[in-house]
């Protein structure tokens, strides 16, 4: 009896591993292909010689990426916006979530509804644009941070984390010892909520690193972040590339470097975030769970 059950467990294990392996390949292969193409001869890439391994190995593309003034300045702008934006957003989340986590705060219900409404309803693109413009932010980097204000969905997760995962006894003991609300916030809440802090910091970083639409609308072409710079390389030039392809009859005639630049810039834009998130991955589920349980 026991043996046959063991066998069926083993068979189902094998089936599950096979299914997930296929899914893994489907998800990972496009990224792997771009990585390989970024160090291959573009002619070989478009001739279908780089399905598994690089062909005509070259690092010219990466050299070109780091010599291209637009990409370099885009990269540096993105770093700047990501660092400042993340500091700003996480601070906003914390200073909002902490008061909202106090069940006996007079007016808590009012503030709750005040923030929640903005989650479901907004002014829309143009009315928001007009306000950003009239507050003088257009063309300034602050237009990327301030209009976002408080990310209400994340704020609720952080608030619930404060309510559910920070020991109440500790806060009460501190209060009895004469610690002020601000003291509890700085000495107990912040040090004890590091997992959710890490998760929220990564979420903000990803959002700011990958954002281009806000920059497109508000920055007016100045200080473009990396994704917006890449739009000229990836989207606009692929239209002209396909035109060139129809005229000259193939990619052989095209400037190899332009094609290499596409693959390399995509890798440069994607890798920083792909390297960071595995470090906080173990907190994702925990954080979500603590945040989702209603206190």
């Amino acid at each position, binding site marked *: 009896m026991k043996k046959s059950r063991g066998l069926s467990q083993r068979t189902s294990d094998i089936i599950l591993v096979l299914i997930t392996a296929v899914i893994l390949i489907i998800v990972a292969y496009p990224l792997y292909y771009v990585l390989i193409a970024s160090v291959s001869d573009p002619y070989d890439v478009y001739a279908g010689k780089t399905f598994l391994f690089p062909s005509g190995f070259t690092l010219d593309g990466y050299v070109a990426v780091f010599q291209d003034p637009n990409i370099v300045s885009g990269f540096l702008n993105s770093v700047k916006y990501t660092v400042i934006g993340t500091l700003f957003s996480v601070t906003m989340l914390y200073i909002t979530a902490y008061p909202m986590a106090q069940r006996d705060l007079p007016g808590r219900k009012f503030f709750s509804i005040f923030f929640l409404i903005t989650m479901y309803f907004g002014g829309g693109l143009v009315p928001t644009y007009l306000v950003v413009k009239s507050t003088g932010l257009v063309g300034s980097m602050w237009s990327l941070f301030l209009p976002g204000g408080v990310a209400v969905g994340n704020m609720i997760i952080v608030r619930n984390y404060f309510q559910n995962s920070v020991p109440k006894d500790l806060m009460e003991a501190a209060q009895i010892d004469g610690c002020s609300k601000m003291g509890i916030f700085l000495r107990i809440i912040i040090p004890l909520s590091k997992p959710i802090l890490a998760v929220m910091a990564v979420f903000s970083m990803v959002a700011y690193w990958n954002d281009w639409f806000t920059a497109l609308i508000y920055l007016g072409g100045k200080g473009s972040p990396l994704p917006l710079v890449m739009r000229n390389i990836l989207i606009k030039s692929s239209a002209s*590339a396909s035109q060139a392809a129809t005229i000259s009859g193939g990619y052989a005639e095209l400037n190899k470097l332009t094609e290499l630049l596409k693959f390399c810039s995509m890798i440069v834009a994607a890798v920083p975030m792909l390297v960071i998130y595995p470090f906080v991955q173990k907190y994702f589920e925990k954080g979500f769970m603590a945040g989702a349980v209603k206190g």
Partner: protein
Amino acid sequence: MSQQYKPAVGVLRRPNTPLGRRIVNNWQLYLLLLIPVVLTIIYKYVPMYGIQIAFRDFKASRGYTGSEWVGLYWFQRFFSSPTCVRMIKNTVLISLYSLLWSFPIPIILSLIINQLRFRRYKRLVQTVLYAPHFISIMVVCGMLRIFLSPSGGLINLIFGTSIDFLTESSAFRTIYIASGIWQDAGWGCIIYLATLANVDPGLYEAAKIDGASVFQRIKNIDLPELLPMAILNLIMAAGGLMNVGFEKVWLLQTDLNKATSDVIAVYVYQQGIENAKYSYSTAVGLFNTAVNIILLLIVNKIASKVSDVEFV
């Protein structure tokens, strides 16, 4: 002991302290809230007030209330524009099909991942499946444009064809939805995996002793456990049915696939930001929001009947 003592303190202290005193005691908390509240008023509530320009002929020099009131003129103009029906249809179809595909897939994925017993492999699967979520839509669209290229694109190389997918309007929805699944299906698993992680291990043990197979365990333990969360997600998604992501559509749109890729969000951007037709764009956006809110209210009503899951 302490269990009994604690609520007593809370209960006793509250009624004894007058409201004014409690507000003063919490001044530091209100101070913390000051900046978030001010920013929310300026950048969330003032734009809501600004929606009125949808009913006016907005001139920046005259301000919101000084501009001439034109009633439903801009809405009439939108409904009589030649591409209006096409845009509404495309918006609804793209989101409806997206929902149909991208709702069940994370559930199935998380049921499979949850059954993996080799911890390291399970973690690897999760790490890889989350990865595309962290990539910019700009990069995803760049990849799509290269992969779908008629000459030397990955898809055409694999199938030995030379189809220019991005000029085929019949392919647009498939491209949009498939790439969306690639990017976010894995990430969508997190909330389900977290739910499954909380299942009482005793249930599995009992099921194993009773000789239940993996599929019986999934069907009888995991699936019922996921159902409330799945319903909640479905409701939320249905409430945002008219919210087609602007970014991806705009980056993948070509003159030749507009028959299916022309959506309201892109139109709102083009009219409002590129052409500076502020009032007209606001009216179109408001129509979109109005439909969404009606959907959300309907769905919310159904939800409160189906289950007692709370939103707020």
